[in-house]
């Protein structure tokens, strides 16, 4: 479905992503993990066409989209849920979804909106509510719903769990598993590696803009040293777990 070969993008002299290769099939979740500044968001934004690439190629469902703009990529079935949700805070839920369906015809957009409401009944109840007045979880649902307005074949999600309560993260993760079962290929960028690995079918680990490991979640989990070296958060958690275990041992 989505094939990225040697993707390279730079901001001036800073290389944000270098020769990144990844592929995700229909009905599959690929977790793109790594510590801060690893190049995850740049890879997502370059894939969607918002950041100009200096090398490599992007194929979507057999079509070379490397030279196409974001609008054409959206029309071909690519959508993004941006980091921090980036909702239109002063618009209603309904209006946010309408803008999300920019590339669709009116009947297609109407159908897609009803599908988003069916997926998130809470949004249907709040369709006239101003997006900025909703809770973080509801806003994330709206961000996903808005991306679904183009009926994507490939959904790029940047930091799904950012700033959300564990219960809401569960709900969002359940939703993306449901979308995967519907046949959507999902690229999930996550700082919360544990949660990403729970739902992912494949994992790509980035560090300093380069792919340092790729494989199944089990393969990534199995390598403790790798975890501690490349994935800061989980490495930190592993250390904290060890400290807590030592404290417990001493007190007993």
């Amino acid at each position, binding site marked *: 479905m989505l094939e990225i070969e040697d993707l390279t993008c730079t901001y001036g002299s800073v290389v944000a992503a270098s020769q990144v290769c990844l592929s995700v099939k229909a009905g599959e979740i690929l977790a793109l993990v790594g510590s801060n500044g690893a190049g995850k968001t740049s890879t997502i934004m370059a894939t969607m066409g918002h950041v100009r690439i200096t090398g490599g190629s992007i194929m979507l469902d057999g079509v070379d989209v490397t030279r196409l*703009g*974001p609008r054409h990529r959206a029309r071909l079935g690519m959508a993004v849920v941006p980091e921090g949700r980036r909702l239109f805070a*002063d*618009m209603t839920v309904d209006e946010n979804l309408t*803008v999300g369906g*920019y590339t669709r015809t009116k009947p297609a957009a109407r159908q897609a909106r009803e599908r988003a409401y069916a997926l998130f009944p809470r949004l249907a109840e709040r369709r006239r509510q101003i997006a900025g007045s909703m809770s973080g979880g509801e806003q994330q649902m709206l961000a996903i719903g808005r991306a679904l307005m*183009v009926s994507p074949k490939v959904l790029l999600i940047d930091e799904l769990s950012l700033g959300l309560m564990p219960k809401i993260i569960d709900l969002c993760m359940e939703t993306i598993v449901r979308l995967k079962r519907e046949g959507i290929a999902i690229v999930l960028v996550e700082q919360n590696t544990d949660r990403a690995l729970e739902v992912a079918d494949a994992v790509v680990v980035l560090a300093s803009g380069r792919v340092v490991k790729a494989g199944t979640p089990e393969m990534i989990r199995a390598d403790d040293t790798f975890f501690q070296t490349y994935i800061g958060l989980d490495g930190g958690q592993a250390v904290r777990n060890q400290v807590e275990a030592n404290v417990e041992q001493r007190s007993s």
Partner: protein
Amino acid sequence: MNGYLVSLVPLIGVNAILALGLNIIAGFCGQISLGQAAFYGIGAYAAALMALAGLPFWLTLPLGALTAGVFGLVVGLVSLRVREDFLAITTMAVGFLFLGLVRKSALFGGEVGLTGIPPSGLGPQGYALLVVGLVAATVALSIYMKASWLGFAFASIAEDEGAARALAVPVPHYKLAAFFIGSALSGLAGAIYCYYARFITPDTFSFLVSVSILAMVVIGGIGSTWGVLLGAVALTLLPEIFRFAGEYRQFLFGLALLMVMRFSPAGLFGMLSRLVPARLGNLRKARA
């Protein structure tokens, strides 16, 4: 209608169209412009030159608007590269450039401006009616635009340009469209003014005029068509209403503007939206 009121109608209409034009750029699409007087002037000078060259009135009005729209499009191209305060300064510079050009050019009559512009041929009352019709058409266009796809795209750019881009909204196209429509409306106001005054001088299109148009938009309620219309009417009439105060007229005018901004930052429209439901609520309570 007496002669004084008839003479006020085109002035109110010119300001209303100017403010509604800027509202499309700044209110709907979120692009600040401090050079609206330049497009007003371009429309006026273009219409005046065409009228002096013998073109009929019905042709000079749309052509004046179109000329200003094309120049607006060029300034819109700048908005693709700069934003917010940088865009404000750039548009302000466009205003000064325009003034500098017309003041020094013999084609535009230099400091003296252009005189001897032929009449519209409609008479004062007929002209006032035409202006009312054009204001009504501008209001209708504005309301239609806000509720249409164009309005949604403008609103998404005004709220978060980055998010609009992420959703594949072609931001540059819409910014240019906003600048074209807003500037063309300012040009139309300029053409109307040129047939109303029948002479134009560079001072009519000074930076102060750009600021006054912005004040009409902000005090009326930026983004609201009815609010901006109300702001334009109020700010055109207030100096006339305060005429009784003689030398203190400007002081009272400034005080009134300060009061609106202090007690209703959302402008006159915001104030009315709060007052009307409250009054309705009181009526309901009284009936109960």
